């Protein structure tokens, strides 16, 4: 049974909007030109490749369903557990749960347990149920086994990559011979830095293929307290981060745009009221507001358990609510920017000219002001993304973030609090959360920089591509 959670619906809506905009913009040079500049940016495209990988995982993780577990008198019975297409894909990882902690690539549990064999009790490190289970003597065979599996998977990765590269070259050959086209791509003579993107993709494949291949025989990032595979948790956290980073802006945009433009364009008492509103909102510490609202929400959810069929629905509602709260507290910055811009645009001569024609105010806002502030909106949305992902981590750590049952970077970090204090230390859940979050936020930031450079004419820097020749004649 297909389940569409609230956030799923919104994620699909957002993807649809982005697709529609892409089609629309591709036909309009002034809209597509800055994107072409993004396309020419090396760091921008490298980070875009990484982001696309994250987004694909997030999207796959947004197709939810409830598997059928039995048929009772012709009527199917569905599990209460909501799974996603992604869960399905990494089923082995999800199902391979140990009893408790185990370190990365280990074949043994992390702590000694008392086992009774032949009536003798002994305290040993027991073998794991899944990690390296098919090895007879892990001490000797483990490393060669890991290397062998990685190598095979890496070769597979290279194969797939070569296929993709060949398709790309083929599509770009346009009249040239295949080797010519290939060399022009690999020497970076194309407008879009395909060589950098292919390089990044190769690096990703060389990591992802082995990691994925190994994950069915080992726990690449170890297991956590209840024996869940940490690699799986980290991958699942991606969706939560993406949802927070994108849906929050979706919630915030209408407020920021509407109020900002109103204040700037119409001015007068409306301007005073809106300014007053956001100044006031700004002076309340956001954490306070968020904590209060989230706790209130939690009370409501707890009081009405009947509203939710599954745990996932409960957690999802809280996630959505968190997005809204974060949106409510973060629209002020953009709103202030837009007010300033609208104030400036209002004096622009083309707007005066439109007024001289008696064009209505609504039309002026939609046709003249809105399109001319969209670049600001876009820049601030991409810049905001990473800070929202980080905000989620902090809030969940404090306990006012997502539902504890929801896998997210924040909840992973939260549980790491105790793990780091253990002796010997359990470091891998935190490390995994750190690595994934770092990769995501860094690439988002680099991409945001590329977008800002492309859309904001003031920050554009020219590349030095003038031939250093003294005389080319």
């Amino acid at each position, binding site marked *: 049974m297909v389940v569409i959670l609230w956030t799923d619906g919104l994620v699909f809506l957002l993807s649809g909007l982005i697709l529609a905009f892409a089609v629309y913009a591709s036909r309009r*040079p*002034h809209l597509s030109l800055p994107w072409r500049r993004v396309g020419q940016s090396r760091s921008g495209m490298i980070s875009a490749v990484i982001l696309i990988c994250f987004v694909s995982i997030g999207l796959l993780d947004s197709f939810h369903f409830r598997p059928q577990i039995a048929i009772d008198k012709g009527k199917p019975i569905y599990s209460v557990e909501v799974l996603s297409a992604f869960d399905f894909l990494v089923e082995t990882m999800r199902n391979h749960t140990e009893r408790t902690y185990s370190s990365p690539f280990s074949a043994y549990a992390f702590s000694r347990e008392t086992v009774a064999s032949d009536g003798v009790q002994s305290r040993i490190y027991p073998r794991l149920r899944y990690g390296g289970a098919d090895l007879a003597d892990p001490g000797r065979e483990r490393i060669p086994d890991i290397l062998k599996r990685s190598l095979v998977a890496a070769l597979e990765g290279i194969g797939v990559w070569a296929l993709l590269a060949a398709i790309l070259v083929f599509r770009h050959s346009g009249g040239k011979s295949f080797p010519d086209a290939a060399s022009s791509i690999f020497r970076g003579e194309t407008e879009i830095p395909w060589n950098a993107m292919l390089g990044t993709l190769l690096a990703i494949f060389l990591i992802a293929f082995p990691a994925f291949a190994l994950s069915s025989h080992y726990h690449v990032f170890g297991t956590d307290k209840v024996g869940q595979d940490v690699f799986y948790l980290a991958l699942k956290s991606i969706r939560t981060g993406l949802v927070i980073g994108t849906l929050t802006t979706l919630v915030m945009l209408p407020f920021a745009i509407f109020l900002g433009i109103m204040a700037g364009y119409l001015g007068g008492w409306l301007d005073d009221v809106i300014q007053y509103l956001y100044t006031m909102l700004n002076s309340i510490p956001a954490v306070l507001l968020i904590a209060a609202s989230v706790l209130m929400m939690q009370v409501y959810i707890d009081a009405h358990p009947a509203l939710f069929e599954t745990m996932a629905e409960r957690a999802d509602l809280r996630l959505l609510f968190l997005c809204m709260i974060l949106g409510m507290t973060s629209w002020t910055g953009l709103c202030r920017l837009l007010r300033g811009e609208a104030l400036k645009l209002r004096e622009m001569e*083309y707007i005066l*000219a*439109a007024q001289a024609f008696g064009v209505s105010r609504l039309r002026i806002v939609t046709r003249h002001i809105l399109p001319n502030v969209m670049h600001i909106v876009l820049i601030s949305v991409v810049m905001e993304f990473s800070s929202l992902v980080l905000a989620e981590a902090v809030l969940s750590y404090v306990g006012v973030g997502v539902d504890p049952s929801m896998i997210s970077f924040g909840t992973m970090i939260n549980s790491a609090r105790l793990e780091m204090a253990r002796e010997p230390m359990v470091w891998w859940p935190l490390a995994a959360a750190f690595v994934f979050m770092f990769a995501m936020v860094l690439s988002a930031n680099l991409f945001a920089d590329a977008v800002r450079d492309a859309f904001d004419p003031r920050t554009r820097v*020219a590349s030095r591509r003038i031939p250093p020749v003294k005389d080319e004649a």
Partner: protein
Amino acid sequence: MSLLELENLRTFLENNGNIVRAVDGVSFSVEKGETFALLGESGCGKSMTSLSVMRLLPDAGRIVDGDIFFQGSSLLSLPEKGMRDIRGKKIGIIFQEPGLSLNPVLRVRDQIGEVLDRHAHLDREARNKRIVELLDQVGIPDPELRAEDYPFQFSGGMKQRVMIAMALAAEPDVLIADEPTTALDVTIQAQILELLRSLQKKLGMAILLITHDLGVVSEMASRVAVMYAGEIVETASRDAFFARPAHPYSRKLFASLPGREKRGEMLDMIRGVVPPLSREFSGCRFAERCDHAFDLCREVSPIWHDSGGSLVRCHLYADGRPGPVEERKVVAEPVPRPDMPGEILLSVRDLSVHFPIRKGLFKRVAGHVAAVDGVSFSIAEGKTLALVGESGCGKTTLGKAILQLLAPTSGSVNYDGKEITGLGRRSLKKARQGLQIIFQDPYASLNPRMRIREIMEEGMQGMGAGDRNAHILELLEEVGLSEDAQYRYPHEFSGGQRQRIAIARALAVNPRLIVCDEPTSALDVSVQAQILNLLKRLQADHGLSFLFITHNISVVEYLAHEVAVMYLGRIVEKGRAEDVLTAPAHPYTQALLAAVPSIAGRTPRAMARFDLPSPADPPAGCHYHLRCPHSMPQCETRYPEPTRLGESHEVRCHLYGNDTAGTGD
């Protein structure tokens, strides 16, 4: 040995992947104590030449060939550190935008001090003395006090003086002045040019003057080089150049200047636009726009020829030939001038626009700026009223208030027999139908996100789709743009073309009166001529009236039937163009007319002293009395009433009142 010598300089810039050959083989030399003028339209590479000399090119730029010699030694082979000793100490520079060239957070004293510290080692006291001396030298009143001020506390003209003081701090041998007065009003321009001349005489420095204004060249230069599309096409002494410009391009520049003698004819114009410098050229770069071009011009780039008086790059002077024969001169098309007095179309009575000045935490109204203060005039059908005055005197505000784009504080605007102030949105929309406006900046007046078609359709909301289509085509044809222009975006057009689009947009509603707010001041002379011709033709064809706001007197002389001179929110003199321009009565009008640099050369003049006072706090009595050479006791207490001098000539000055027997000048 010349002081400064450029030898085959080539400076390229990278722009969106294209190589822009901004300076492409430029050679000239500047001698000690002379003023060498580099003349050319915008985008031809003048600024890049001067920045190359200073080695201050933007990141995207690079000198690819040639050399620059200062007193015989190459500047390009100097290390950056050595170059820093040259900058300021040997070669100073001032830029076009005084507002952008001063650091807003540093006191003037510290900015000048910085230069002094770099190049002269003075103790504290000597340093302070020198700063005050420099400010005094450039004519800043109360230099001791003003040295403590920040740049924003200075007006545009005063900022330019501070810039000059900074450039002169280390007593350079050459001063590069890149359009030093383009951003300033004529009266201030006259002051700055006079200042440069006197400083040059006193200090004996050479000036490399970069400008697009023939009048400025004529007043300042000893030698001239004309630049076109990255190359120099003519060099001559000032006298030879103004007596007989040789290159066809130079001749066209003269011919496209508007002026009194050309009233009633169409201006000669250069067709087309300056070619983009990212293109490869073969042959003469002016060939596409030249009336004399022949086959050779398109194939072979001309070399230098002597025309007897000047050096020219034009094939027509090869082998001692005499140059272009002018019998192909475009016959001046007589323009029918609707001279009979028409019906009054627009009449403005006692119109005032006061802007509140808000202060403090609660934005209390602390006072008012009387941007427009009791202005009355009227415009007849088919006539042009020119409104002239310095920037900041309220011209644009008046224009906007007439169209009700700003709510007037008081007074009446009567259009076509109907009062249009105080109307509601809906009734205003109808009443305003016949009134339109064209703005100064063609880059700000078209929405960059809309196609030309959508821009033009804005005024045609009541029309059916078929009619619209026909009307758009008709309008594009009318303003001289091709049919496919409608599907393009504004950024694909040059400044002049954009101004045509703005005109077409205004024409879309069949207006009867268009307020033209400095429509040509952002354009080059050759393009200005195209726009002025267009406006003049539209007036003849459709009987349009214009309220033409400008500070360019030669445009007024060429176009206007009536003139109103505005000073600090009030009209101080108005009347028929012939009367006001030939016999200006108000001392301000006299100063304004005298300040216009003329291509006939330097003339002694009555200059307006000081700057325009702030409109927020105008002087008591006659607003002009602080600057007026004829100021009398009553001028300081009472604003003069209008006095009639002739049938339509009216002036507000105590010199002409009944209580004084003044004679004017």
